[in-house]
């Protein structure tokens, strides 16, 4: 079981992800934007964070950069969740510090597999 922070401004997507991950036995902390994700990561010390790219206020890319600059978050795996799937967008995500990328609309089964794989790699 892992502690996972999920940040997405779309309540439906957030709830779908929360349901799938809780169903898989994880402890999930849902938030609605990038700034809240950074705060939640500082407070909860999660094993993984999933960030939507386009969010009001602080975007997922900015949140990823902020987390990468924080030495207390060293090695925290980040998965980006986004509607944009072009090479340049994916490149941007990796440059910001993402470990993996999931494209919306998403498959819950694929999400669970990627979460397991990223968690296994980080341990």
């Amino acid at each position: 079981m892992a502690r996972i922070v999920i940040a997405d401004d779309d309540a439906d997507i957030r709830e779908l992800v929360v349901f799938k991950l809780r169903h898989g036995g994880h402890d999930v902390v849902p938030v609605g934007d990038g700034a809240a994700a950074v705060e939640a990561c500082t407070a909860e010390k999660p094993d993984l964070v999933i960030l939507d790219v386009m969010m009001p206020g602080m975007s997922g890319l900015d949140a990823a950069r902020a987390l990468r600059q924080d030495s207390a978050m060293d090695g925290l795996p980040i998965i980006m969740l986004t509607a944009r799937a072009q090479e340049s967008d994916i490149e941007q995500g990796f440059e910001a510090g993402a470990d993996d990328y999931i494209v919306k609309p998403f498959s819950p089964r694929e999400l669970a597999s990627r979460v397991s794989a990223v968690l296994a790699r980080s341990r």
Partner: protein
Amino acid sequence: MTVVATSGFLGVSWILLIVFSVLAAVCLVSLVVTRAARDVWAVRSEHRRELVRRSIFDLVMGDEDEAAAARRDLESTQGRHRQRVQDQILTMLPKLRGDSRDVLVTLLLARGAERRAVALTRSRSAVRRCRGAFQLGVLGLTEHLPVVVRLLGDPAFLVRRVAVRALGNMGDPRAVRPLLLLGEHDHRLTRDLVYALDRLGAAAAPELRTVLAERLAAGEHLHLDPAAVVLGLIGDRDAIDVLATGLESENPSLAQACAEALGRISAPESIPPLVAALLDLRPNVRAAAAHALGSIGSSVAADSLADVVEEEEPQVSRQAAEALLRLTAGRALLEASGSAYAREALALDAVRGGRR
């Protein structure tokens, strides 16, 4: 006489007072009861929504037993609730793909959603036609593509708009040509067209290239910006030639969109046509070409950009200076330049560096 009149007046006043008091009490009680009933209805409605949502989640992500129970629950709904269940599933569908989506589509089709959606597109009500187009798009039934394409000619703007987005969701590249044709005549739909064509993704690229090439060859410089924008968003390297041709379009907006798309694709072979576009007579095209060269990031274009920094058009000089900042050889050229825009770019970069 006076005593009788006074007591009669007092009697009427009392009666009126009592009548008004009773009426006020009745109004107050009605108001309280109505508000309480509305609150109870809202709570019950939210509770039902939550139950349906839970069933949908169980159906697509639960264990075998949970999924079977959820299916029974969702299939057994009748009347108004049946419609609510369908609406909730339709809202959830665009967010899912894979098995989860297939399970929900199968459930909706078994409940006659396809037939009802097609019927809605023929309704006299524009709102119902919108709902029909939305539902066909979400269900992604490409055999009904002609039905949605027909709605692109609907007299109601909102119906055309929903139909454009629905065609994007259907994922069939046969929609590209009718979408571009509509965009040429209805500029208000540009954003929706870009959304729809981008949703079609790489499958749309061949047709986008073909239409753009045909129109440019025929000297037709209509509103084809969405085609250029989406080729850039898709990152289609096969579109570089046609986009380079588009840089010379008589339509300045299309030429600008082509430059921006080439910048997004970021291929080195786009550098020569973009450098040539730095000499275009139209400032918006020169500025877009400068920005694109900055995105490509090759120092091959540095000298040409340094020349443009010196020009008088502020938007062009600024873009060229910003582009130079992104090139390895660019900073030295900016420092050697006497242009105010070169100094501005260096100062802004120093401020950004301070923040970083």
